[in-house]
C-alpha cells in the first residue's frame, strides 16, 4: 500500500501541469531542463520534467552533440543510487501497467524460453535509443528519436491521447505512424492485464539501464544466508518471477519489496548502504 501511494504521488507530481490537459498544450517552464528518473513522456500535457530516454535521443540526434554527458550522467546517477527501485516505486508508466494488472482476468507468467523475452530490451536500447538516433539522420543532420517514434507506448498514451482529446484536429494528421504506435500501445495495455508489467520487462530501455545498475547500485536487496531456509516463498510471491534468494541483484527485480513481506525468517532486507555489512552476503551459499 505504501508503494502504491508513493507511485501515485510520483505520477501526479510528474504530471501536475493541469492547464496542459485542459488546453491541449504542454508545460514550458524551466523544470523541463531536468530529466525525471522514470519513463514519462515530455509531450504529455501535464509533464513538468523531461523523459530521460527522449532527452537522450534528442541530444544524440542533434547536430551539435554526438554524446550526452548530461542525460547519461543523470541516468547513471539515479541508477547508481537506486537501480530499478525507480521502476518499482516512482515510474508513472510502471504504475499504469500495475493498475491494468489489477483487472480481474486470468493471469499468466513468463516461463521457460518465454523468460528470454526480457533480453529484448537490451537490443531495443542499443538500436532504437543509441544507434538509430546517432546514425540515421535527415538532410539537416538531425537524428530521429526512433524509440519514441516507433515504439514508446507512454508517448501514445500519455502524450498523443490527452492531446487529441483536447485538440481533435490532431487526428487529421494521424496516419500510418499513429496506427503503428497505437497498435503497440493497445498491445501493451492488453498484455498488461494478464502479465505483470510487460513493457518494463520486455521493451523498456530505461529498465535495461537500471537493471544493469541493480548489480552495483547503493540500494540493494540482501539475503541473510544464516536466516534463509530456501523455502521459495519469495519466488512464489514475486510477480516478476525473480529468485531473489539466489540472485538479490537480479536485473529484473524492481525492488517492490513484496518478497520481504512473505519471508518467514526475515532473511531478506533492503536499504542504501555505503559499506559492506559483515553478516549479510549478496548471494546465498549452501552450508551443508
Amino acid at each position, binding site marked *: 500500500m505504501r508503494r502504491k501511494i508513493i507511485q501515485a504521488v510520483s505520477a501526479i507530481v510528474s504530471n501536475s501541469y493541469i492547464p496542459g490537459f485542459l488546453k491541449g498544450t504542454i508545460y514550458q517552464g524551466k523544470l523541463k531542463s531536468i530529466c525525471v528518473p522514470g519513463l514519462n513522456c515530455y509531450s504529455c500535457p501535464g509533464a513538468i520534467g523531461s523523459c530521460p530516454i527522449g532527452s537522450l535521443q534528442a541530444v544524440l540526434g542533434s547536430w551539435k552533440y554526438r554524446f550526452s*554527458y548530461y542525460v547519461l550522467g543523470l541516468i547513471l546517477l539515479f541508477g547508481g543510487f537506486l537501480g530499478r527501485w525507480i521502476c518499482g516505486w516512482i515510474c508513472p508508466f510502471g504504475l499504469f501497467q500495475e493498475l491494468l494488472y489489477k483487472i480481474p482476468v486470468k493471469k499468466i507468467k513468463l516461463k521457460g524460453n518465454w523468460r528470454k523475452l526480457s533480453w529484448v530490451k537490451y537490443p531495443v536500447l542499443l538500436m532504437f535509443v543509441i544507434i538509430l538516433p546517432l546514425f540515421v539522420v535527415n538532410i539537416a543532420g538531425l537524428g530521429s528519436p526512433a524509440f519514441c517514434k516507433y515504439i514508446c507506448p507512454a508517448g501514445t498514451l500519455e502524450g498523443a491521447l490527452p492531446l487529441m482529446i483536447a485538440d481533435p484536429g490532431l487526428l487529421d494528421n494521424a496516419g500510418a505512424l499513429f496506427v503503428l*504506435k497505437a497498435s503497440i500501445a493497445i498491445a501493451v495495455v492488453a498484455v498488461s492485464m494478464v502479465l505483470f508489467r510487460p513493457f518494463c520487462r520486455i521493451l523498456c530501455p530505461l529498465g535495461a539501464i537500471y537493471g544493469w545498475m541493480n548489480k552495483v547500485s547503493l540500494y*540493494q536487496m540482501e539475503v541473510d544466508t544464516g536466516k534463509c531456509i530456501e523455502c521459495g516463498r519469495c519466488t512464489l510471491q514475486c510477480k516478476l518471477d525473480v529468485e531473489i534468494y539466489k540472485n538479490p541483484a537480479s536485473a529484473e527485480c524492481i525492488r517492490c519489496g513484496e518478497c520481504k513481506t512473505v519471508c518467514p525468517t526475515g532473511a531478506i532486507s533492503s536499504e542504501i548502504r555505503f559499506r559492506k555489512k559483515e553478516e549479510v552476503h549478496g548471494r546465498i551459499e549452501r552450508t551443508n
Partner: protein
Amino acid sequence: MVGKRKTIGIIIIAIAAGMVGYGIFRDEITDVFNKAIRICLECIGIGWIL
C-alpha cells in the same frame, strides 16, 4: 562481492556527477529544454511517414 559492487557503484555515481556537471557546462541542457518544451509530434506518433 557486495562490498566490491558498492565500490563500483560509488565510482559510477562520482563519474555520473562529473558527467552531469560537464554536460551542463557545455550547454546540453538547452537542447534538452528546447526539445521538451515543444510537442514532439513524431514522438507521440502524429505523422504519415514511417
